């Protein structure tokens, strides 16, 4: 037995990596289709959007990056489909270099015109404002000082939607997509604290522990990556890709349990081995 354990202890971890890849591929080829329960943050997210009065102004801050697009896209698409099915105004701006490209990619998938939305009247997109918190502070304080034109070069004063909107005081809800886990602090500090703006977060699973510290006091609700997207797709009955990714994650956790068991076997063998020597 101890010979087997010592062999187990000296396994090259790269064989375990190969075993992990196989486990990840199995559910992709033949999905398990396990059930998913909708959690409270996702339910609150849905309720905040669906209870917006007609004509409300929603600002959407796009902070996703190319490397994490696969994890936030499903939740953003579900949010767009939800928002565009209500009579509200939608203003998007970007605080990450990849934001403009990703935002256009997602809007082309959702096609706002199919929801009866007209660009310039019902929704507008602004490009990148680099500088992190300074950029979101600048947008909250004075939109015209931050952007003179929209993403397509149209002067801001020629956009009907923006005629009476120039700062956070004219905004009813801000939805922030962030993948730098501290970036939720920017909106808390520059929108919620000074203007008491209602705030929803869309983030990847890794930032959930950080926004949890603000929920529900400063942040009314949030969607954590693909599991949040899966729950929203179920709750709002929206077709999407979240469910497939969540399903394929299931077997991927087995290697983690295996690594922990092997680690403790190695630890206790070394510890009891020493005590026997004593």
């Amino acid at each position, binding site marked *: 037995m101890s010979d087997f354990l010592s062999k187990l202890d000296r396994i090259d971890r790269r064989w375990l990596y190969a075993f992990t890849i196989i486990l*990840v591929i199995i559910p992709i080829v033949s999905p398990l289709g396990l059930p998913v329960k909708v959690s409270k943050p996702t339910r609150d997210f849905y309720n905040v959007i669906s209870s917006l009065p007609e004509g409300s102004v929603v600002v959407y801050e796009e902070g996703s990056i190319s490397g994490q697009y696969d*994890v936030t896209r499903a939740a953003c698409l579900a949010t767009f489909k939800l928002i565009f099915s209500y009579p509200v105004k939608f203003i998007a701006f970007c605080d990450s*270099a990849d934001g403009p490209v990703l935002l256009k990619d997602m809007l082309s998938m959702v096609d706002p015109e199919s929801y009866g939305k007209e660009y310039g009247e019902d929704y507008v997109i602004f490009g990148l404002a680099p500088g992190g918190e300074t950029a979101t502070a600048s947008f909250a304080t004075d939109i015209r000082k931050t952007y003179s034109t929209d993403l397509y070069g149209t002067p801001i004063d020629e956009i009907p939607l923006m005629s009476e909107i120039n700062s956070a005081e004219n905004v009813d809800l801000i939805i922030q997509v962030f993948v730098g886990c501290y970036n939720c602090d920017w909106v808390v*500090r520059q929108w*919620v604290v000074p203007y008491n703006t209602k705030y929803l977060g869309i983030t990847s699973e890794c930032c959930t522990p950080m926004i949890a510290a603000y929920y529900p006091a400063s942040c009314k609700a949030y969607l954590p990556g693909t599991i949040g997207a899966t729950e929203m797709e179920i709750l709002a009955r929206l077709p999407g890709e979240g469910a497939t990714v969540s399903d394929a994650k299931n077997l991927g956790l087995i290697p983690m349990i295996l690594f922990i068991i092997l680690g403790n076997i190695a630890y206790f063998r070394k510890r009891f081995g020493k005590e026997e020597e004593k």
Partner: protein
Amino acid sequence: MTPIEVFMTWVAAILTLMVLSFLWKENKFYRIAEHVGVGAAAGHGTLTAINSIQTSCLNPLLKGQLLLVIPLILGVMVFLRLSKNYGWMSRYPMMFMTGTGIGVMLGAIMEGQIIGLLKVTVADIFVDNTFLAVSALIVLIGFITTLSYFIFTKEHTGGLGISARIGRVFIMASFSCNWSAEMIYYLGLIVSAFMFLINVWIKQSILGI
């Protein structure tokens, strides 16, 4: 799929496999993907920076907002870092940004990062629901003991030592939650990558299903 889409799908798939090869060991294929990734990130960053300078500085400056000549000059001074004798002048834009950063952060951090959290940590305890009150008490204990761990002007002995030790248990539990959240997030990216390789690259562009 159009021919160009098939070709670009092959490019994306091969680059993905090249990066995955780093799991085995650092090799030439990984190095190619590394240098492609660095070039793309620098190119994309440069492009978005040029676009941002144009829309938020040059266009409004040409339309009469003359004060914008100040950030334009400060921005150009950044490049003086490359000069042998005038490198020190690049400190002016640096210190302007530092001043703005401090100003924007120093005001709101009080409420957002300190007093707001103190308020909610205390207020959460005084609720009617016993389970929530006890849970909020655990948050309070975690908060106080974690804060005590970060006291620098006293050795962690005696009462402070016990508090700091309890704080470390809470800290490790929190690290573990963050580790778990990150691991599931990375798992999502790995699954998405293999979904692309299987469903788009193999099925669509090779087998044509």
